[in-house]
C-alpha cells in the first residue's frame, strides 16, 4: 500500500465541468513529485483536496492508511502541510515566532515544548535571528521559509508547495529550492506544483495534469524523452532537452545530446 493513495477522485465547483476527473495516483513515502499542467488543469484543486480543504464529489483519498473522512480528516491534516504561492496569504502571526506557533497552538502542544520547537525549526530554515520580526519586514522567500518551519513543527511529513516559488526573485527561489532538497533528504514526501520546468527536473517523478485528468505520471528522466506529452499539454521542455530532442539520432550529435541531458538532470 502506498503512502498516499488517490482513487477515482472527481471534483467540480459547479455541475457543468469537472475540475478533476477520475484521478488515480499512488505516491510513496519520501518521494519528490513535481506536478505540471497548464493554468486551469486542476493542479491546485488536487492539492486542496489532498489537504482536505475541498471535499471531492466522488472518490477516496487515503494517507498512511487513513481514509480522508470526517473521522480521520483531523489526523490526516496533521501529516500534511501546504505552502501557497503568495507568501502574504498564509502569514497569520504578528511575528515569525507567532506564525510558527500557530499550527502547534491548534494541536495544543504544551508551552515549553512549543518554545523549544519554535527555536529548533526556525534554525532549520535559517530564520532564528528573525523570531521577533514582523511579516512586513520579511522578504517573500523568508516568509515561505517561515511557513515551512510552521509545517515542520507540526511534525508533518508531507509538504505540498503550490507554486511556492513563483512570486520569488531568482535568488530567493534558488534558496527555497535548496531547503526543499534538504527536506527531501530528511525523508519528507514533497509534492511540488510548478510552472517552472527546471524546478520540476529535480523531482523523482513528474505528474502532468491536463484538463483535470492525469495525462502522464512517470520517472523524470523517462517523461522528458516524450516531447508529445509536453506539447499536448501546452507545456514547454527545458531549453537543454528541447535542443537534445531536436538533434536527430545522427551520430555526430551524440556527444552534444549526452551533455544536454547531463545539464538537464544536474541536481
Amino acid at each position: 500500500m502506498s503512502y498516499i493513495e488517490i482513487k477515482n477522485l472527481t471534483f467540480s465547483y459547479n455541475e457543468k465541468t469537472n475540475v478533476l476527473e477520475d484521478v488515480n495516483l499512488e505516491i510513496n513515502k519520501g518521494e519528490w513529485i513535481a506536478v505540471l499542467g497548464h493554468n486551469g488543469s486542476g493542479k491546485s484543486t488536487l492539492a486542496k483536496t489532498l489537504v482536505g480543504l475541498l471535499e471531492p464529489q466522488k472518490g477516496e483519498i487515503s494517507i498512511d492508511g487513513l481514509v480522508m473522512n470526517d473521522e480521520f480528516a483531523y489526523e490526516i491534516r496533521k501529516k500534511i502541510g501546504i505552502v501557497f504561492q503568495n507568501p502574504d496569504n498564509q502569514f497569520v502571526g504578528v511575528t515569525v515566532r507567532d506564525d510558527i506557533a500557530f499550527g502547534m497552538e491548534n494541536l495544543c502542544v504544551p508551552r515549553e515544548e512549543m518554545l523549544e520547537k519554535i527555536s529548533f525549526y526556525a534554525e532549520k530554515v535559517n530564520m532564528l535571528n528573525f523570531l521577533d520580526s514582523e511579516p512586513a519586514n520579511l522578504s517573500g522567500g523568508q516568509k515561505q521559509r517561515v511557513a515551512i518551519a510552521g509545517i515542520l513543527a507540526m511534525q508533518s511529513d508531507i509538504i505540498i508547495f503550490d507554486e511556492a516559488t513563483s512570486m520569488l526573485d531568482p535568488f530567493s527561489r534558488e534558496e527555497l529550492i535548496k531547503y526543499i532538497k534538504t527536506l527531501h533528504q530528511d525523508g519528507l514526501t514533497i509534492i511540488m506544483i510548478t510552472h517552472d520546468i527546471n524546478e520540476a527536473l529535480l523531482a523523482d517523478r513528474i505528474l502532468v495534469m491536463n484538463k483535470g485528468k492525469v495525462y502522464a505520471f512517470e520517472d523524470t528522466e523517462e517523461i522528458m524523452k516524450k516531447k508529445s506529452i509536453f506539447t499536448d499539454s501546452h507545456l514547454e521542455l527545458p531549453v537543454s532537452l528541447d535542443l537534445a530532442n531536436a538533434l536527430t539520432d545522427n551520430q555526430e550529435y551524440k556527444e552534444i545530446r549526452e551533455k544536454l541531458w547531463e545539464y538537464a538532470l544536474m541536481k
Partner: protein
Amino acid sequence: MGIRFNEVSYGYSSFAQGLYTAIKDINLEITEKNEFIALVGHTGSGKSTLAKHMNALIFPTSGTLEIFGHTITNKRNKKIKYNDIRKKVGLVFQFPEYQLFEETVEKDIMFGPMNFKITKEEAKKLAKQSLNLVGLDDSYLSRNPYNLSGGEKKRVSIAGILAMDPDILVLDEPTSGLDPAGKRILMDLFKNINETTGKTIVIITHDMDLVYQYFNRVLVMNDGHLVFDGKTEVLFQKEDLTDYHLDYPNTIKVLKYLNQELNLNMNVFQKTNAEALAEIKRAVRL
C-alpha cells in the same frame, strides 16, 4: 516629453529599519512613444518604487521628476492636475486581479474611464475595444470577474488600464503565476499593443528568457541604484551578473555549458531555441 528622472531619491522611515532609502540618485529618461522596456532587479532593489514614481503615485524625497511636462517634487503642487498624469501613464500593479471589484467585466473596465468625465456610452465603447485588445471576445463583457481564470482576470484588469488610453503603460510582473503558454500569449499581446499603437510599455519581470527574447532596452536596479540602462544584448554579454543579482537566459547558460564541456567555440548569444539549435549544428559541422 515622456518621463524624466533627475537625481531622484525616495526614502521612508520604518519601525524596523529606521530611515530607508528605496531608490537613490536615479537619472532616467523614458520617451512617450514606441519604447519597450524591461525593468529587472532582485527583490527589494527598488523596481516597484521606481515604477510608482512613473505616474506620480509617490513623490521623490529629493530630486525632480518630469512627467509629460509636469514637474513633480517632494511637495504636492496645487497647480498640477495629478489626474492628467494618471491618464497619461497607466500603472498595473502586481496581481491586478485582486483589484477587480465590479459585478461584470464591462463595469470593471468602465470604472477607470468614467473617472475622466466621459459619457457612459463612450465608456462602454472603450470597454469593448480594450477587452478585444487583450484578446477576449465580447461574450466576456457580461461575465462576473470572480468566475474567470487567473490569466483571464489579469487580462481584464489590463484592459481596465488600456481603456483609459494611456500613452505609457507600466506593468509590475504581469506574467507571474501564468503557465509558459499564458506568459507568451501575454507578452505577444504587449508587444503587439506596443507595435500597433506606439504606446511605450515598461514591464517589471524576473524572467530573463522573456527579457532576452522580447526587449531591446533593459533597466537594472540593484540596492536602490539604477546600475544598467542599455541594450539587452549588452547586458547579457557581461562576464558576470552576480553583482547585479541577475541570472542569464537559459539559451546562454546551456550553450556556455556545451562550450566548456566539449571545448567548442559556439557563439552563445542566441535568443531562441531555434537559433541555439542552428548554432550547435553550425559548430558540429566545422
